[in-house]
Each structure stands twice: as structure tokens, then as C-alpha cells.
């Protein structure tokens, strides 16, 4: 059920940075995403919560096409992609240029130092000179509180430090939108805090963010827009405070009770 691609000019005027329309994704019989739509405005922080297996990560991974939806439309900035059709390399590149991603498992490059992890993609993707890229890398390392670590290898850094390097690496490419896929789930609670602090700062600076998370406090305090997913669909969405205090569906209520009252 391919949807007609919306006119890019019309889409731009809505001020939406990211929009997904009617995303469907199935692995064989198993439907992971069942007609999911979502839109995120520029500068907005959107948190996606819900039980495991709800399709949160898959949805996030559809935004930069790490996961290819069966159908639906993905728009980021001025790039629009109809998932039902052949996607050109140029289009794909245009999409990914605007989207930064942070993974649950950090995925730093183990054979490169912290500095090179951040500088190399800039050199290869944006064509920056080595000096320019490393300057920018240092600047970002300082911003995430790791100005003393450039020469370290990732394996010598704590999980929280690795994740902050991963955030710096993504930011170095000047993305329009940052995607976070359970960025603190692999971390000890205390190490998770340092990552959340960096994310809070980013949000305050006006970065557009989409965050899949189990950190309810973060979802409640930092996000402007909350999406609750379950069984491959959006159960409800809206203002975080409203959903946390007065959920509209029974399923949301059960989920919130399970995560908050333990």
C-alpha cells in the first residue's frame, strides 16, 4: 500500500523536520510496524516508549533506512523517500547526511582512537581536511566532557564514555536530527546519567531528537512529545505530562504502572 509522495515544497512549509507516514514493516508473517505515522518538528524532542517488542527500535531504524519498511513515506528535511519504490543511492545518501544515530551498543570503531573515531567520518563523508576534522572532534569531545581522552582507544573507556564519544561522532557530521536507540540500556545506572546529561544539554540547545528509551524520567522531563507504542502501533501520543498522569488507553496505563511502580 504505497502512498503517494507528498509534494516536497508543501511538506517543507509545515516546519516538520521528520515525518513518517503509514510505515508498514513485516518479517514474514510477523507484522512489526502496522501503519505507523509520526512527525517531529524542528527543535522538538520526541521520546518513544513502550514494552519490548513494540517496534520502537524498528521504527527508529526505518528513519535512516537501516531497516527498510515494506511501504510508507519517510521524509527528513528536504529528502522524501517512498519505501515501496526503488531508493537511489543519492537519495539514501541525502537522507543519511541529515540524520545522526546513537546505538544501544555504542558501535565505536575499536581499531581507531577516540579522536579518529570522530574525525574519520567527517573526512570521508564531508570531505573535511584531517586538521579541520580533528579540531571539530576535539571541540565536541570537550563538549561531552571527554577533552582528556582523544588518544584513548574505545576499549579503554567506560560504557558511559564510549556512548558520549558516539554522540560526538554523530554530531560531528552536523545532522539535522539525532536518533537515539536506547542509548543508556547497556549502561550501569550511574554511567547512564552522564549520557543523559549530554542528551539533556543537546535538547536545550535545540537539537531535533527522537529517542527510544526506557528512561521514564528523561521521557517525562526532557521530551516535548511522547509516543507510546505497543504491538507495532502507536497506542497514544501527546504531551508527556498528560500521558504520564492520565493515560488514555488501558495498555498504556498497564505499561506505565509496570515501569513506574516497581
Amino acid at each position, binding site marked *: 500500500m504505497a502512498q503517494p509522495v507528498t509534494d516536497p515544497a508543501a511538506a517543507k512549509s509545515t516546519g516538520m523536520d521528520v515525518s513518517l507516514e503509514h510505515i508498514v514493516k513485516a518479517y514474514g508473517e510477523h507484522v512489526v510496524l502496522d501503519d505507523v505515522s509520526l512527525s517531529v518538528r524542528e527543535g522538538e524532542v520526541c521520546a518513544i516508549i513502550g514494552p519490548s517488542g513494540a517496534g520502537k527500535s524498528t521504527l527508529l531504524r526505518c528513519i535512516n533506512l537501516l531497516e527498510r519498511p515494506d511501504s510508507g513515506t519517510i521524509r527528513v528535511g528536504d529528502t522524501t523517500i517512498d519505501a515501496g519504490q526503488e531508493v537511489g543511492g543519492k537519495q539514501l545518501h541525502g537522507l543519511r547526511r541529515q540524520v545522526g*544515530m546513537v546505538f544501544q551498543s555504542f558501535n565505536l570503531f575499536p581499531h581507531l582512537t577516540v579522536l579518529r573515531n570522530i574525525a574519520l567520518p567527517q573526512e570521508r563523508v564531508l570531505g573535511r581536511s584531517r586538521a579541520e576534522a580533528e579540531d571539530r572532534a576535539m571541540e565536541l569531545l570537550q563538549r561531552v566532557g571527554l577533552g582528556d581522552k582523544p588518544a584513548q582507544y574505545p576499549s579503554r573507556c567506560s560504557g558511559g564514555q564510549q556512548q558520549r564519544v558516539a554522540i560526538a561522532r554523530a554530531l560531528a557530521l552536523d545532522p539535522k536530527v539525532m536518533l537515539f536507540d536506547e542509548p543508556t540500556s547497556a549502561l550501569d545506572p550511574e554511567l547512564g546519567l552522564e549520557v543523559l546529561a549530554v542528551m539533556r544539554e543537546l535538547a536545550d540547545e535545540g537539537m531535533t531528537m527522537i529517542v527510544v528509551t526506557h528512561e521514564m524520567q528523561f521521557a517525562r522531563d526532557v521530551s516535548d512529545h511522547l509516543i507510546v507504542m505497543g504491538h507495532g502501533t502507536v497506542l497514544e501520543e501527546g504531551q508527556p505530562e498528560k500521558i504520564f498522569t492520565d493515560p488514555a488507553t488501558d495498555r498504556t496505563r498497564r505499561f506505565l504502572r509496570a515501569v513506574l511502580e516497581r
Partner: protein
Amino acid sequence: MDYVGPIASGIPMSLLLTVLGFAIGAVGGIPLALMRRSRLRSVRFISRSIIELLRGIPPIVWIFLVYFGIGNGLIKVEPVPAAIVAFGLISCAYLAEIYRGGLSAVHRGQWEAGVALGLSHGDQLARIIGPQVMRYSIPAAATYAIGLLKDTSIAFTIGAQEILFFADSQAKQSSDALTPYLVAAAAYIILTVPCAWFARSVDRRLRVRIAS
């Protein structure tokens, strides 16, 4: 009688055959390993067939094929280049399989990070995945190199002047058939043991970094 000097003079040739054969395989194994993981069934099949063919034929048969077969019929091939070509071909297959193991050892998240950052496929292979595969491949590749060094002894059958060649001629010149071959055996041990030791230490140092 002193056999050590003459037999030791074969060491450079043994090393030359090993190093060049291995180098050909180290380069030629890369496309074969990548083809092995192609999305296209036919490409995977071709690569697999080439690997099985190269590995399935014994080294000495490869040497005879190249030296006597091609060398006689089509073009004139000297023993040393013939041996290098034969060992190079075989090495391509073995190293392709070693790389394939290294490729599957690289975590899937490494590819995903590269994709998400917008790196081209070539950049990902050359800058991100390739170096990690090389590091994972060191122990198996070193074991193979040691095996190859010993296998180069069969190049003596076509007259390449390596360790066994000189040991054999010494044995034929004297009545002593045992000592020259024992000296040859010692020469191989002296070459392979430091090689294994060196590979282990390199592996240990690099592994600290990729074990994340």
C-alpha cells in the same frame, strides 16, 4: 663433514617462495572472500568453486601443472616463478577462507554505524571493516604461513634451490643420508618457531584494542 653452510644457503629461497606466495594470497584472497559474501547467489557460487578447486588439488600437483603443464606447452616458465604462482594460487583460497572467518567475527553494529554515518561501501570496507578483519585473521594467517613455509620444500622437485634442494644434493654427494636431512629439519624449525612467536605477540597487542 659440514653440511650447515650449504644447506643454510637455501634459506633465502625458501623464504622468498613463502613470502611471495603468501603475499599473492593475502591480496588475491580479498576479492574471493568478498565474493563469498555477495548478495548474488551466482557470485557466491563462483567464488566457492574457485576456492574448492584451488584447495582441492595438492600443492605438488599445482606445481607440476604450472611448471610442466603451462611451462612446456604455452610459455617458458622458470622453476621459481612457477612455484611462486602455484603457492600464490593455493594461498588465495586459504586466505579467502581465513578472511571470511574474520569478516563474520566483526560485529554487525560496525556495519550499521558505518551506514548510519553515511560512509560509502568502499570506505566501510577499507577503513572500518577491513582493518578489523585483518586483526582477527592474524592467528589463522600465521598458522597458514608456517604451513606454507614447510610446503615450499616441494618446490625442490622442480629444481628451485631452497633448503631441501641443498640438503638433498649434500646427501647424494656423501654417504651420509641422515645428517643433511636433519640439518634441513633444524633449518625449518629455526624459521618457523620465531614466526609463530612473533605472530602471537602481534596478535596479543592488537587484540587488546578490538576486544571491546
